[in-house]
């Protein structure tokens, strides 16, 4: 039975349809897998009883030969910044510790109507502000790779670290993360799973508690590209509740078999600006290996230049803090969220609720963002950042004239040790961690991180593919091809 968790969605669906396994058994095994890896702190809440009820409903559908989709009866994990009806949605914060939404995010709604069973809400950095899944009021998540004990471990990456661990350990086949500057791809890279940041607007943001509205996208984490596609197919497409969602009808992606694909003639760009001096030699080597591999398989690989990449991080930092300052203004303790006892005056109630409800990272970003937005600073910071964002976005437009796809590292190094990671401030870490992932969010283009091999220390190394808007079918096909060639040694393989 344990083996069932380590396989892929197509296989499980077949087994379920043929009645070899039952949804109840799958969910119960998944729940025991959750217990097995408790030490890694992947979850903020495990929705055990709900999951069991969901499995029973799914069971009845399979009994009646009326399964809803290939996800029917399969466990799914959702990051704790997506609203789940009647299930606490905390954003790993004191502010929303007791927040129980009365509605489902569109992503959650669509997964539920595909029959998927919510296993739990995963750990993250508070309000997704971070890149390590360490700034959570529920404590840090701990990577499975190179794990020694509760004090000596590598970070999972973030901010969707919990979802990545859940996928890597086989608690589920796929999980939902969010990606604003790399929050899905970064932990995917460190945990050795596939992490997709779809085109901005392809997947609805309704019910995703925002970080930076103009860059946030729901992300998909899975062990295989095919599983990633199955989940994307269930959640993508126009949503009238999100005015920024794309109205063009979504056509479900069907990928050919890895064996039957050819990369002949594919134009691949390697942007020189991604050679950071902080890039570790091992990651650099893997990047080269993949470039060589693609070339050997018939692709045309060439160097390209995206000169504004270096400004991306500072530009992002300004836009992020401005939107954070604005988005966080609603947390005043009146309608929802943490409310302090200090109700001497409305102003005092606001001030104390906010100062206790948010951690230092959130408070700092609010303060800085508000400073940037002051009338006297608006031109100098916010507006300038918008212009730089346009330049970065134009770099992508220009590069698509010559290549179809970009190949870059996802992260500069393998997963850092927790003790090393926390030496730097959240701000410095974000600047470092988001270096390769962040520009795609500026331009809204899709990007996917795929694990390639293990480092000498036994930690996953991944690469990132970036494509033009709505090029997911091609992007994921190439990812699948690479996946097929490199056969990454997944963590779950060790569990059989």
């Amino acid at each position: 039975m344990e083996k069932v968790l380590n396989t892929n969605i197509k296989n499980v669906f077949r087994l379920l349809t043929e009645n070899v396994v039952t949804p109840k058994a799958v969910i119960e095994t998944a729940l025991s897998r959750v217990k097995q890896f408790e030490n890694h702190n992947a979850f903020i809440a495990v929705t055990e009883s709900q999951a069991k009820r969901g499995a029973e409903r799914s069971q009845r559908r399979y009994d009646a030969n009326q399964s809803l989709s290939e996800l029917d009866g399969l466990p799914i994990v959702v990051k704790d910044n997506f609203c789940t009806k009647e299930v606490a949605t905390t954003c790993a914060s004191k502010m929303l510790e007791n927040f129980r939404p009365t509605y489902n995010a569109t992503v959650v709604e669509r997964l539920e109507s595909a029959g998927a069973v919510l296993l739990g809400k995963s750990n993250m950095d508070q309000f997704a502000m971070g890149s390590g899944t360490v700034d959570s009021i529920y404590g840090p998540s701990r990577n499975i790779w190179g794990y020694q004990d509760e004090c000596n471990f590598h970070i999972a990456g973030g901010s969707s670290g919990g979802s990545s661990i859940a996928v890597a350990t086989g608690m589920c086949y796929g999980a939902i993360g969010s990606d604003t500057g790399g929050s899905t791809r970064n932990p995917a890279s460190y945990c050795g799973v596939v992490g997709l940041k779809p085109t901005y607007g392809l997947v609805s943001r309704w019910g995703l508690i925002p970080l930076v509205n103009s860059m946030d996208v729901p992300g998909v984490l899975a062990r295989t590209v095919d599983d990633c596609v199955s989940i994307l197919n269930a959640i993508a497409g126009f949503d009238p509740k999100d005015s920024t969602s794309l109205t063009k009808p979504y056509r479900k992606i069907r990928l050919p078999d890895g064996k039957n694909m050819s990369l002949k003639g594919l134009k691949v760009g390697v942007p020189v600006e991604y050679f950071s001096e902080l890039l570790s030699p091992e990651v650099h080597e893997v990047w080269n290996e993949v470039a060589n591999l693609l070339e050997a398989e018939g692709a045309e690989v060439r160097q390209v230049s995206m000169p504004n990449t270096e400004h991306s991080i500072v530009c992002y930092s300004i836009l992020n803090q401005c939107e954070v300052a604005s988005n966080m203004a609603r947390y005043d303790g009146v309608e929802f969220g943490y409310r302090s006892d200090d109700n001497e005056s409305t102003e005092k109630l606001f001030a104390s609720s906010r100062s206790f409800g948010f951690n230092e990272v959130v408070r700092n970003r609010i303060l800085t963002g508000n400073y940037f937005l002051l009338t006297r600073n608006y031109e100098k910071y916010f507006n300038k950042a918008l212009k730089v964002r346009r330049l970065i976005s134009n770099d992508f437009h220009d590069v698509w004239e010559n290549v179809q796809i970009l190949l870059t590292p996802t992260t500069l190094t393998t997963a850092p040790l927790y003790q090393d990671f926390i030496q730097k401030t959240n701000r410095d870490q974000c600047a470092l961690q988001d270096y390769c992932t962040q520009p795609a969010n500026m331009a809204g283009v899709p990007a996917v991180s795929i694990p390639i091999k293990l480092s000498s220390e036994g930690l996953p190394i991944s690469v990132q593919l970036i494509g033009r808007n709505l090029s997911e079918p091609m992007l994921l096909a190439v990812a699948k091809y690479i996946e097929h060639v490199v056969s990454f040694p997944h963590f779950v393989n060790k569990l059989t």
Partner: protein
Amino acid sequence: MRVTRSLLSDKNRRYLSQLAKSSPKWQSVVGLEVHAQIASESKLFSGAANKFSSPINSNVSLFDAATPGTLPVLNQRCVEAGVLTALSLNCRVNPVSYFDRKHYFYADMPSGYQITQQRAPLAENGHLEFHVFTPGVHKSPYKAHAKLKQLQLEQDSGKSLHDFDRSLVDLNRAGAPLMELVFEPDLADGEEAAALIKELVNILQRIQTCSCKMEEGAFRVDANVSVRRPGDPLGTRTEIKNIGSVRGVAGAIKYEIQRQIKVLEANGTVVNETRSWNPEKKETIAMRDKEIQQDYRYMPEPNLPPLHIVMGPIRGGGVNADEIKERIPELPEQTRQRLEQTFGIRQEHCIILVNDAGLLRLFEAAQIGRALSAQKLANFLINELYKTLHEMDLEASDVKFNPDYLGEIVELIEAGTINRPASEMVLRQLLEGNPDRPLQIVENNGWKQITDEAELRLLCRQVLQENEKGLKQYLGGKSKVFRAFMGAVYRKSNERADMKKCDTLLKEILGELSKRKVD
């Protein structure tokens, strides 16, 4: 240089006449900002109902409560209402406009910001011509003009209810759609401001984009007031917030102008501040206002794409300004011109008729199928009907009986069947619900005018006989007594005598009497 009158614009003429009639030392400058709630089914960015006087917190969607994860979806009906209003006010509609967030903390604004249009409003550069005429203040009407700087869409806030030891919040109004109309400071005083508001209300009610019910807060007026010496740059202004009635607008501005002049004449300085109007005490009071130095930290609203308004013959999707333009009904100024040109009605009567939609409806309905003098009908409505309505504490819109009856009454007066006092009695009966036709009412009550000369002559003689003392005085040269005789005749006839005829007859009889005396 000699300036001939014809060279002066209306405005200059007004200005000069003002200098002449009041203190020549000061000139006042007034600008208005209006918040008009759009009369839509649902709110600007959510599906919650946009209804007044619903149970507290019953029209609140997740978005209106700023629930995390929710997003705004623009209500197309509100955009259409905004465009219709903009076009009716001669604005240039922007093909692309944007939404912005305006940040400030307030308990009844759940998201901590208001979504408004700061960078590029829905429409700009409108203008409005209107007539200034307050009977009792102005002898005759004059035309004034105000430029509309911009019209933007924005969200309303909720309401805070303050108890002595706690505050409660009602979010029914939070997120309700507003049009903010910002006028240039083109007005000279409170009467002009009130006239502008009246005209605006009139237009918005005709195009049905706002109920304009000031008592429900559906239409709120802020006024910017400053005074200066003629020729000087603009003085420091104060802002009077949330004035709740048209007469309040006139009163508040008048008070504020005089207050500022008093301050300046005492060598004081006018402080830039927000004031409120107290309609009971008839004065403006400085509000405790910590928000003056507030920096709203505007930011583009990232969850809403730019708002595109289609112009020209492109069909399908979005709001089309040209299509909306065709929906504009006859506007008040056109109605006034039509009344003046088609019916030859006096200008001040046109103004009065058009300022009261209920009265105008009666006027137009009463004409149908009758060859009436329109001016006489207008006179009757403005005099007898208004007087009777006023006595009964009713409005023209409360008239429920068949408007054709009004035409009939005017015809009865014109035919001499009844006199004016009798017409008012008929009106009273009709307003009280008497279902009979006016002629029927007249006959049932015996209110017909006495026009028979023999009968009237008899009445006159009787009055003179009963009033020997007065007659002696009259014959002795005191012609004033004539009016007393007329009054007596009228009373004796139970107010039914045709007094025009009596005037002639009485003079005739008196003439004979005085001749006899001389003889």
